[in-house]
Structures are given as C-alpha cells and as structure tokens.
C-alpha cells in the first residue's frame, strides 16, 4: 500500500530524544551532517558511526522502523557505492576493460555507504521523534532572523505545516481512490509505461479535485477562526530549551572537535 512509507513519520514516545527541544534537534542534526562530511578517515568515520548508533538507541524507536526507512534509499546507496568502487586511483586489484577496482575505490565505496546510512539514520531519528508541528515551529523560530530580509518566515512555516499535515491525508485518499477504481476493474499493475500512465488518470483527477476542495475548506476554516498571518500571533505550546538540550549541544561540540582532532591526528589513515 502507498501508506507504508516510514520516511518522515512521527512516532510518539517519551525517550530522551523525544523530550529534547525541536530547535536543539535541528541544530544538532545540521552540525551532525557537517560532521559526517568532515570525517575524512576511518577513525573519525568510526566515531561518527558510533554517535549515530547512540542516537538510534536513545531514540527508543524500534530498529525495524529505521531499517524500513533505509530500505527506501537502498537503491541510491547501492548505485553510489558501485560507482565509487570504480572511481579509485592507484594500482588496480581487478581490471576488465576500462573498469578497474582499486584499494582507494573500495575505501571510497565504504566511506560513501557509511556516510549515507548515517545521514539517513540521523535524519530519521529527528523526524521519528519530533511531531511535524514542533518541527515547523522550530524552523520558524530558527529562521526568524531572516525577517530582516523581508522573508515571510511565518507564512513559509505555515505552508510547511499544512503540507506536512496533509501528506498522510493525501496518501490515504490516493489509496481509497485507487481501491475504488480497482473495484471497477482498473488495471494499474500491468501493461507498458504508456498504459500505466494512462491508468493513473482515474486516480489523479479525483485526487486533484478533492485537494482543491480541501484547500478551499481549510482556507475557509482558517478565516473563520480569524487567521491573519503571523502578526501578533502567540503560541499555545512555547518551545523551551532544558538542561538536556544544553548538555546535548555541549556533547555534540565535543564529538565534532573529536572528529576534527581524528582527522588531523590520523591524517595518514585515509
């Protein structure tokens, strides 16, 4: 079913990471991504991987869910690592025409694979443990300085909230419409590519129609509750940073320093 997509799904819970402030989590994720790409040798990469595993464990989300989100991108991982395998320089270990595999190619492939996996796991940890509302709320707060450039931060955040809110709804709706058309004998799983695209029309048209209807209804409902943009709007749930958040940020700084230190100290291990 279309609905079985785990990427970007929020799973309520009460783990350490669930309890952290969404802003702190976003900032930490960004610095973690920087860290992933700063890890130039196996020691610093191992450190990054270890941190990733710690994050995954302390999020209290079943490992199965992480595996599912990895499954979605397994294709990309395989392609990039295979490409990298052939891109190395140095003495070939194996050669066939212009294709050659070298030690540096292998180490690059391993690097890329671990990097992508860490990236996906860390990002999943954020989306699994943070509700979409908190996430966009946090983004709105973090982007506030951009107001100086007349960027409509609140409006952008509101659009994101609405978009995120409606992803599951639209998936559910797609599922329902597909079922209904299948019940009338629509054949979506066979035929060549043109036939398949044609078979989507009976699904896409009702989906568009109902999306527009929903958009009108939502706009109407928001107006009825006097929504008028971000001006003078207060929050019901104010985000607030607690001790955990500061401790985590400090830890992250230490680890980041560690990675840079490993890079310098073990530079010959690339």
């Amino acid at each position, binding site marked *: 079913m279309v609905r079985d997509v785990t990427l970007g799904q929020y799973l309520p819970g009460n783990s350490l990471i669930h309890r952290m402030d969404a802003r702190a989590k976003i900032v930490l994720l960004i610095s973690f991504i920087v860290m992933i790409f700063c890890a130039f040798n196996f020691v610093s990469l191992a450190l990054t991987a270890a941190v990733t595993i710690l994050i995954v464990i302390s999020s209290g989300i079943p490992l199965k*869910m992480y595996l599912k989100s990895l499954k979605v991108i397994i294709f990309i991982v395989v392609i990039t690592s295979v490409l990298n395998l052939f891109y190395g320089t140095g003495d070939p270990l194996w050669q066939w025409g212009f294709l050659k595999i070298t030690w540096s190619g292998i180490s690059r492939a391993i690097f890329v694979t671990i990097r992508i996996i860490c990236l996906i796991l860390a990002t999943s940890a954020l989306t699994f443990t943070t509700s979409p509302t908190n996430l966009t709320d946090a983004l709105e707060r973090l982007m506030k300085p951009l107001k100086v450039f007349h960027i409509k931060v609140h409006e952008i955040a509101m659009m994101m909230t609405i978009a995120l809110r409606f992803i599951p709804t639209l998936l559910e709706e797609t599922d329902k419409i597909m079922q209904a058309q299948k019940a009338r*004998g629509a054949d979506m799983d066979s035929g060549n590519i043109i036939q398949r695209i044609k078979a989507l029309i009976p699904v896409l048209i009702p989906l568009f129609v109902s999306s527009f209807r929903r958009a009108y209804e939502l706009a109407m409902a928001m107006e009825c509750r006097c929504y008028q943009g971000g001006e003078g709007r207060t929050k019901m749930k104010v985000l607030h940073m607690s001790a955990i958040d500061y401790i985590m940020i400090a830890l992250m700084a230490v680890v980041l320093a560690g990675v840079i230190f490993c890079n310098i100290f073990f530079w010959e291990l690339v």
Partner: protein
Amino acid sequence: MSIIETRDLSFVYGIDTPFEKRAVNNVNIKIEQGEFIGIMGHTGSGKSTFVQMLNGLIKPTSGQVLLNGKDIWENPKEIRKVRFQVGMVFQYPEYQLFEETVYKDISFGPKNMGLTDSEIDKRVRDAARFVDLSGELLFKSPFDLSGGEKRRAAIAGVLAMDPDVLILDEPTAGLDPMGRDILLSQICQYHKQRKNTVLLVSHSMEDIARVSDKIMVMNKSNLEMFDKTKNVFSQNKHLEEIGLRVPQITKIMASLNEKGYDFSEGILTVEQAFAEILTKLNKEGKLW
C-alpha cells in the same frame, strides 16, 4: 454451494509497525445466492475492511475467501475477474468520479471488462435508469451534479458491471431522509429484478431492518452475530451492549408488549406496526 464463504478470515493493518491493528479477526460466514445481507457494527468494528476482502481489494492476512467454492487468491493474476463478479460501492463513492461526462464515467467499469460498444451502451443506460439518472444528466460533467446525483452516478458505475454480488458500504451516508429512502428502494428494486446477492453496510438500523433477510453484526473486529433479521433484532440487550440498538419501532412494540399488549414479536418497520395495531383494534371492535 454458498456464493461467498469465508474461512478464518483475518486482516491486520500496519503489520510489524507500532500501529499494528487487527481489523478483522477469524470471521467464518456463509452467504447464499440471492440473499440480502445487512452488515452493522460500531464505528471501527472492521466492516469496511471485511467487505474489501470479499472482492480482493485487500489480501487477507490469513484465512480464505471462497467465491462459488473457489479461493479468490488461488491465482492472483485473475483477481480482476473477481472484482467484476463482486461489485463494490465505497463509502462516499462520489469522490471516484473522474470522466468528462456521467455517461463516460459509468462506462468505465464495463469498458474495463472488455465488452462490446453496444453492450456497454445498454449497460450504462440500464444502470442509469436503475438509479433514476435521466437522459440529459448523463451528458453533464459529473462535477456539475448535486451531491445526491453524484452518489447515484457513482453507484451506477458499479451497477453497470452487473456483478453477481453487490456490496454497498454505507451508500446512504450524508443524504437527506428523502434521498436515503429513494436510494434504498432503488437498491431493493435492483435486487428484486436481478435476483443477485447484496451486502449492505449501514449504521441505520431502520434501513437494515427494512431491507435485509439476514444481518451480520461485527463487534471489535469479531463476528458477533449472523442470523435472520428478526432473530438479531429480538436481542435488544445484546445489541445495546455492543453499542447498537434495535429500530425504534421494534423497541416501541416491545415496550407495549411489556405493558400487557400482545403484539407479535420482531416488528421491524412502521408499516408492519401500523398493520398490526390496525388488525388488533379491528378485532377488538374499537376501530369504528
């Protein structure tokens, strides 16, 4: 042989996720050709999930659905054929309309069956006549119809496939009382003429009481009762325990009986009650 039989039919949503939900649990049921079955149960009891398994829209997690004695999943490639034999009208079917004209939309099903043009034309017009969509409406855009007309157009889209078994999931939800009565009697009419099997999911006890031969009651994913309409509605207490009730008129007649009258048991519609009271008064000579 029963037209539809289920054996230990179960369905679990979101298997292997924290959202796992057993929506249908070990349902065994036999439905005979030509029966009109009412399906009721509190919201979330698994009615929609159950009926979707009957025409292979979702595959059972465990158990079997037999159509004319044959497991419908025996050959997954042939599942489309099953869907032509077991027609399904979803909750709020009007959201599945997509063609430029009502006529074209109704012909979507028959076209998928690979019928000839003249046969398709005949079926579309027959189906439209059953749901009382007149000539000029057929060539309007389905999006320009009223809510009730859309509903009827969508139902015609399934009727046009002329299925042996017709499943309707709350076809009258959201219609006005008049529209509900009309739609219900059209369905009855269709059932009487074609002598096919109909399964009707509804939250309206009055509707179910009026039309069905047998009732299937679902409770918390389990099959709670499956019996003749009269027998089900004579179990007032039991039904109330699982969040349902008997039709109002049945309840009134039952309480009259408690007060010492002796009307017959299991009166299901106002018309029956009216006739019953009339005969009684007549007998006692109090009428004129």
